[in-house]
């Protein structure tokens, strides 16, 4: 065994550069993403002395005068130095109206004693709830983003409560993403299975030709295929033109920005991902088993239901899982072809990154999406009939 050991070490050494790349460009970023979902640095960074005082506050009644005075002073300096923006964004995200309150206080420079002047300036400063928000924001870590991403909120006393009806949008978004992914996966299986079956039954020459026809769209970029639908489904696009020409409709139909367009294009994009593995599985099936069943008198439907289908089920499961995982994270197809009510979680994530720059929310949504995916993969793994 002595000569094998250095080879093992060499083998590990050879994998090292690739592992480092994965660590630097994916694992560390994913860890950072988790951290971003709970990080809460703004208050301590902008108002360091107030943060220290708030952390010491016992949370009963109102804080003492020093906290009022320090807060007013630090807010004023932060405004003068123009570094108050991120704190305002953070606190206003937790409670609408904080922007006005903080800006008014920062401009006011209240007289002493501040614990009298601030509530006089704005009664919210006399409300312990305001101070609880500030105290929690001084801790450096917050569950707020993760809660908000599930339509939950923090009460003044720190209890977890449901957001008022009509305000939460994310559970709806998760449910919609899940539903779209399930429908797309189901359609892909229902359409892909018979197609794969037909291809697997072809002679080698025709089989190769058919596989080429599946591989061509498979290799062509998802964006190109989505763009093709984008062009086809336009109001004055080719599909409407054809429908009008054949007299099937009287006026151009609204095809773009509909759920139909999203499902159509997603099924179109993802079909190869289930046809390809299924053809592989079906070609490996021992035809002798089917002949044996036939010679024992099983009719065609029994041969299919009790021999063929069970043998192909692992392939169906694997292909469906691939399609589902790709579908649930889809961004580009719903973004281009769907309306506002057809967007999926990834669209919200992209909006928070490219639009409102709320990294905490983007991360929190991605964390829950990742948790959901992990649950589904592990469920699939344990449900799989042939675990090796």
């Amino acid at each position, binding site marked *: 065994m002595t000569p094998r050991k250095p080879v093992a070490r060499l*083998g590990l050494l050879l*994998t090292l550069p690739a592992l480092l790349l994965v660590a630097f460009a*994916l694992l560390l970023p994913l860890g950072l993403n988790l951290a971003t979902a709970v990080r809460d640095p703004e208050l301590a960074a902008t108002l360091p002395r107030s943060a220290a005082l708030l952390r010491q506050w016992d949370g009963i009644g109102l804080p003492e005068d020093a906290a009022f005075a320090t807060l007013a002073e630090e807010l004023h300096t932060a405004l003068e130095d123009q570094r108050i923006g991120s704190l305002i964004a953070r606190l206003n995200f937790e409670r609408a109206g904080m922007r006005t309150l903080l800006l008014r206080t920062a401009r006011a420079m209240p007289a002493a004693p501040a614990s009298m002047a601030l509530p006089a300036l704005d009664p919210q400063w006399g409300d312990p709830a305001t101070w609880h928000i500030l105290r929690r924001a001084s801790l450096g870590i917050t569950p707020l983003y993760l809660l908000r991403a599930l339509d939950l909120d923090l009460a003044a006393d720190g209890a977890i409560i449901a957001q008022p009806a009509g305000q939460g949008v994310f559970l709806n978004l998760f449910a919609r993403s899940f539903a779209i992914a399930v429908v797309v996966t189901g359609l892909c299986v229902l359409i892909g299975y018979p197609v794969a079956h037909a291809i697997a*039954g072809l002679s080698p020459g025709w089989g190769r030709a058919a596989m080429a026809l599946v591989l061509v*769209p498979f290799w062509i970029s998802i964006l*190109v295929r989505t763009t093709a639908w984008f062009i086809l489904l336009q109001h004055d696009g080719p599909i409407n033109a054809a429908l009008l020409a054949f007299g099937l409709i009287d006026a151009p139909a609204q095809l773009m920005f509909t759920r139909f367009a999203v499902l159509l294009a997603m099924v179109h994009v993802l079909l190869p991902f289930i046809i390809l593995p299924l053809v592989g599985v079906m070609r490996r099936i021992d035809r002798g088993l089917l002949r044996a069943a036939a010679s024992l008198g099983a009719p065609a439907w029994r041969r299919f239901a009790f021999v063929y289908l069970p043998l192909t089920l692992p392939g169906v499961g694997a292909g469906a899982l691939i399609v589902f995982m790709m579908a649930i994270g889809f961004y580009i197809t719903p973004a*281009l072809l769907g309306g506002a009510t057809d967007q999926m979680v990834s669209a919200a994530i992209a909006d928070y990154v490219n639009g409102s720059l709320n990294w905490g929310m983007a991360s929190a949504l991605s964390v829950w999406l990742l948790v959901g995916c992990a649950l589904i993969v592990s469920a699939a793994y344990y449900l799989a009939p042939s675990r090796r």
Partner: protein
Amino acid sequence: MKLISRLFASLILLFMLAPLLVVLPLSFSAGPSMTLPIPGLSLRWYQDFFTGARWLLAARNSLIVGTLTTLVATSLGTLAAIGIAIGAPRARLLLAALCLPVVVPSVIAALAIYLAFIRVGLTNSLAGLVLAHSVLGLPYVVLTVLAGTKQFDLGLLRAAASLGASRFIILRRILLPLLAPAIGAGALFAFAISFDELIVALFIAGPEQFTLPRQMLASTREFLSPTLAAAAVLVSLVSLALLGGFALLQRRR
């Protein structure tokens, strides 16, 4: 029954190709809008593509990023696959770690990469795109080359070693020639992944780093001209060339 099944399959295959077949004539339209039937044939939208500064920049960026990604992912992925094949310990765990980029939904990977790269100044840079695309392409190279190592007897390596060949000679004269088709296929995969990739580019690329997919997305948000169809056809031609190369390499194996 068989006839119906084949008819259905043909219809679905047609459905899968049809959108691409419709875009093709649109890109050669002589008219200013994407309507069928086209008023006449012309190459003006291809001319528009090849004279448009933004399209050319995007094409250049895509080629640069794709080439560098291919180099990085193929070299690191090949080394890793050889390492696993010759018996690195905990091979399954290593393989799982290297395949992580395929399992994580792309929007999550893109967000994580954005949050990390913005802290180290890798956003708005081609280097950042190359790094991100390399990690996304890596699993395909590893899996393809690893499959390649199963095509021959690794005992060959031990035989060469017992005859006194140095490790470098074994790598140069035996391993790399035997693995060449698989490495080539992995390289094509890596290039295709980078060439198609949109979401990471959407998050971390500034206008100066727009790749072709990113530029195509940008142009769907503007006035729609058949230049978009021309770009789609050109991008598809590159994809088809990659597929052709892949098929050739498969046949050699």
